[in-house]
């Protein structure tokens, strides 16, 4: 649940950096434009999520999968995103697999952290 509306904002610094990287070297961006892009990005995430959820439900799945998202992007006319995302996903899957294997190989080390214990904690972990 979202307690405060600010919880839906994406961090300004990261947004600013992403924008800067996608513009020519010497270009700049107004504060208002940056805020609008940040807002648009949140809305985009919600839009894609709800569309993917609808798609998953239509196929009688409860949980959305990576495939649902990629298909939704195509349907929403963002198919240009799909090739890069597919590549990133491959790298991500390989990373997760490697991590799992290296974990299994040194099983004797402490078992204190269980990646499935809490979904939020698991989300953070994947970021490392």
């Amino acid at each position: 649940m979202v307690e405060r509306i600010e919880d839906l904002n994406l961090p300004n610094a990261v947004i600013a950096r992403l924008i800067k990287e996608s513009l020519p070297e010497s270009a700049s961006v107004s504060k208002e434009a940056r805020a609008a892009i940040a807002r648009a990005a949140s809305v985009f995430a919600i839009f894609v999520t709800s569309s993917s959820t609808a798609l998953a439900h239509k196929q009688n799945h409860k949980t959305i999968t990576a495939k649902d998202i990629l298909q939704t992007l195509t349907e929403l006319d963002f198919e240009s995103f799909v090739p890069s995302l597919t590549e990133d996903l491959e790298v991500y899957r390989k990373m997760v697999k490697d991590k799992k294997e290296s974990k299994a190989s040194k099983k004797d080390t402490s078992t204190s952290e269980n990646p499935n214990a809490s979904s939020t904690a698991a989300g953070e972990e994947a970021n490392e």
Partner: protein
Amino acid sequence: MGEPKMQPPGVRVPNAETFLPLSRVRTIMKSSMDTGLITNEVLFLMTKCTELFVRHLAGSAYADSFRQQTGETLKYEHLSQLVNKSKNLEFLLQIVPEKIRVHEFQEMLRLNRSAGSDDDDSESGSESDE
């Protein structure tokens, strides 16, 4: 979080690093109605995809307004112009509306009223749902 390297625009190396915080993206996803479980993989993909969207939005707005020029400032108007003409950005029409001047707005109101239609709830704060 490791420091992903800066890349020249256009050259892209696939990677499993994300810039945006996964936890925040999760919160945003959860705010959408009846989202079930969110797997780590899906969360990763959504985060990447949102990053791509930010780049896409900024990059196209700039390219559209300035072509090859450099050193310009990307302003709000450039975004609303892009949103106005792109079919796949239609969902942002209420989020990034074109700005109008107060007297233009008043004129619009006046015309609306004189047109007889009394459904004047269409112009104010309709950004709640969707």
